[in-house]
């Protein structure tokens, strides 16, 4: 006989920074909350991010990943929220005003019925296959996150001589980590014309360790039948296509890829939660409520953030409002879409619920192209400008945040046919 169904108010899926913040916020509202974690321990990917640089915004100090996770976990434990590790959600059934989760755990099948769900499932790494690296398929090809886990959790050194493709922060951090552990890092190759990592990381992870960064350069193929023997690298043209005449043979035994993250939304898919084609995460309103009633989402499964502090912030919002949804019953939402124009790649949230008691919103965006001049971001409604913010420099890899405060929120008109919020980037005039 299977264990009986357990009834709770809020289930949080994932115990990374987003899930932990959500669980704490939900419990604080008085909701009966449970966190489900498929890994052996909570903390998500923070546990393997042993480097420092976390928490500047949330804790006003610089913490390592494990330290940040520790604080968040302690908070959740203090709030008496159970964190079920080794608990894998195999499927979710959407009932009337509830969700039934079928979970696999070493103690058997657990069925949990919840009024509200918070998806905090994070993201996964893009692989060599997904960026179409060809050639042989030997041992010695790792995604940066896997290499990080092997080194920091399992104490294993992936190779002796490494080439890194992709200069996102994880790639840079791994370049340093490998170097510190005595691995010869031949170089970091970046297909774009500049690194997508934080400036601080380029300085501290590459320059301080004399690791060269090659921009507009990519790995074209891998050589070696059993273990990587070498990689071919080549410069790329304006369309990011390799220029074969520039191809070079780099002997190495390890290739590490830091070529992007993809939000994990398999459960969202199964619940038919609408997904933003740009962020690849669920479309959410300003309280992180997806377009399916009762399903909230936060953190990197919504859009990939560059700072954990933002992830936690979105978790807190999601948890608080998931609890409210579960406890107070289901009010109708009045959703106003946030449309964007020009150089904006995306804006999260994609919707504002003007009927929500939450009368302010944290918004995040990324630009498509670098703007090195001062720029304005305008928030308009019905042709009327509500607010105008100034940014000095904008880079596509960098996520920007702005807030819609209470005054502005209240001036968003109730929806009629043509009301929307518009974000337009305009280059500031020099007068």
């Amino acid at each position, binding site marked *: 006989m299977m264990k009986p169904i357990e009834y709770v108010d809020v289930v949080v899926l994932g115990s990374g920074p987003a899930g932990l913040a959500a669980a704490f916020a939900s419990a604080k509202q008085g909701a009966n909350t449970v966190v489900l974690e498929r890994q052996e321990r909570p903390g998500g990917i923070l546990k393997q991010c042993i480097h420092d640089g976390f928490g500047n915004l949330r804790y006003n100090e610089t913490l390592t990943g494990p330290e940040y996770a520790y604080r968040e976990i302690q908070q959740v434990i203090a709030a008496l929220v159970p964190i079920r590790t080794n608990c*894998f959600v195999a499927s979710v059934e959407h009932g009337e005003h509830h969700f039934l989760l079928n979970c696999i755990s070493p103690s*058997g099948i657990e069925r949990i019925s919840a009024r509200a769900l918070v998806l905090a499932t994070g993201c996964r790494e893009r692989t060599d296959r997904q960026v179409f690296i060809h050639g042989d398929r030997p041992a010695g090809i790792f995604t940066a996150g896997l290499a990080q886990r092997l080194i920091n959790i*399992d104490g294993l050194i992936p190779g002796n001589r490494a080439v890194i493709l992709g200069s996102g922060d994880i790639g840079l951090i791994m370049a340093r980590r490998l170097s510190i552990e005595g691995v010869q890092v031949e170089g970091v190759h970046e297909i774009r014309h500049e690194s997508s990592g934080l400036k601080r990381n380029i300085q501290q992870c590459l320059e301080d360790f004399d690791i060269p960064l090659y921009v507009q350069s990519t790995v074209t193929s891998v050589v070696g039948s059993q273990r990587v023997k070498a990689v071919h690298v080549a410069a790329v043209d304006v369309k990011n296509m390799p220029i074969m005449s520039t191809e070079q043979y780099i002997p190495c035994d390890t290739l590490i890829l830091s070529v992007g993250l993809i939000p994990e939304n398999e459960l969202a898919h199964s619940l038919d939660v609408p997904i933003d084609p740009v962020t690849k995460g669920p479309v959410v309103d300003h309280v992180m409520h997806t377009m399916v009633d009762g399903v909230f989402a936060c953190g990197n499964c919504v859009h990939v953030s560059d700072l954990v502090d933002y992830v936690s912030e979105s978790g807190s919002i999601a948890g608080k409002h998931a609890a409210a949804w579960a406890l107070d019953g289901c009010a109708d939402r009045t959703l106003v879409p946030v449309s964007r124009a020009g150089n904006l790649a995306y804006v999260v949230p994609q919707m504002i619920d003007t009927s929500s008691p939450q009368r302010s919103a944290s918004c995040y965006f990324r630009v498509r192209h670098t703007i090195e001049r001062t720029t304005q971001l305008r928030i308009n409604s019905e042709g009327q400008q509500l607010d105008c913010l100034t940014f000095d420099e904008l880079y596509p890899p960098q996520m920007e945040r702005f807030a819609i405060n209470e005054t502005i929120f209240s001036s968003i008109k109730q929806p009629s046919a043509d009301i929307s919020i518009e974000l337009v980037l305009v280059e500031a005039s020099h007068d």
Partner: protein
Amino acid sequence: MATSLEKIQSVMTKKYGSALEISTPGSSIRLEGSLDTYQMKVEAGWTAARFGYKAVINDITVPDVQEETIACSSYVDNVLERLHFDVAIIGGGVIGTSIARELSKWNMKIILIEKEEDVGVHTSSRNDGMIHDGFAAKPGTLKALYNVRGNRLWEPLASDLGIGFKRPGSLLLFSNPAMKALYPLMADRAKRNEVDGWEFWSRERVIAEEPYVTSKQHGGFFLPSAAVISPYKATVALAESAMLNGAKLMTSTCLTGFEIEHNTIRRLHTNRGICTASIVINASGNWADIIAEMAHDRFFSLHHRRGTECILDMESSRWQQHIMSMPSILQVREKTKGGGIVLTEEGNVLIGPTAEEHPGREQYTTSPSDMIKLKKHFTLNSKLSMDQIITYFCGVRPCTYEEDFIVGPSDNISNLIHVAGIQSPGLASAPAIAADVAEMVIAKAKTFMEIQPKANWIPKRTADIITRRLSLEARDELIRLDPSYGKIICRCEQVSEKEVVNALHSTLPATSLDAVKRRTRVQMGRCHGGFCTARCIDIIARELHIDACDVVKKGPDSQICKGNMSHDETNRIC
């Protein structure tokens, strides 16, 4: 009737100038000389195959293409020294293992030797898993004969082996009204090949069956008997079934030579010792011509046709119901069907394969041009797109120049049977080929020994437990028996820790990460090992009592990690 040498000389000279020298040793035709490219060499071989000889020996040299030698496992011992076997099978692909299983029904001492660390590592795992209907094979060929027979045998066999089997059927779309007009011809061919059923589908029927099909179709030819299995699971299961019935299976064992006396193989030299066998079966896939040469019986040559296929995310399978392709009229004359959309037994959509003549027998390098070739198949279904690709891989088909199978006893060596040139539809044909080969062996064996069918032969192999396919109730019960069935280590494919442990302790145990992958599907999902690799290394090291540094991806020299921080400073690097 074989064409005269003079006539052949004149045809070949017209085509290739005086570059080639032609001779007719035995009943074969042999080409020598040099040509500029491998493609030209293969074409010359095809031309020679039309002259009516038993087989083509193609010794044309091509600049920058070296004749390859078998890379023998570095493992050396003498466990086989002085042992005698009634039958020795060389090669642990789907053919060798099928034959081993068939022969295990008899009271004979059987050995199968495989040079890799696992069975089914090469062509048998690097294909689309299709059990073809038998329509595509040229009527009258061994391919046509064995394909249809094999198709009928696979469903009960899969059930005995405890592996999955699905029969989605194959739909050949008509790309234009002219193709549609060919229907009677197609039906006639299907009839001649004794294919089990065929249907004409109107344009509307196709839309009803495949809602996302391209608008450019004009109906189709449906072959309901086309099926799919997991080719690597099948090969492992066949090997295990043979082992359960007493066959000896030696991996990491490579044939290094034969001792031949009076046109009979007396001894087999291997890296594991010298043994004897009364009957030898050459089932060595892409090396079959080399093995034949080692037996002084090189009457054919193989050429190697590479195929690349890509696998889409599990999600994609909800938009495709049948195996589907749109062959062009031109392809009727081609050597292969040209690939298409296949549904795998495990629920992925697979696109491919390509077909390209390439000299590497085990060279699985993919290139961007392969992807470009696969692109066209994506247009057959409006929901499929390149960004659903989670991985791609390459396989090599061993082909004779006659483009047919060779199944039968050697003309020159009294105790050797060749099973060679087993390209597509080799997987589909395997059970039928194995049945025939077993008959040949039995007939031969009866001339020098007493043989009887085993009374206690076990047809059934216990199916591996695949928890994701079980009901919640069944999973719950299993977890109560062993909690590690409830510990999911591969999130994409929902593989539990116990399934990995089982693979490491099965009848034919996995010894590498890739072998675990083939048996359990860890690393096969959308994250492609990003999350589960570290956990698999941990479990493999623990279960095999080895250092984590010694866990390999695929056999010797493929260690996944190069250093272990738990060791002391001096031996941190492994």
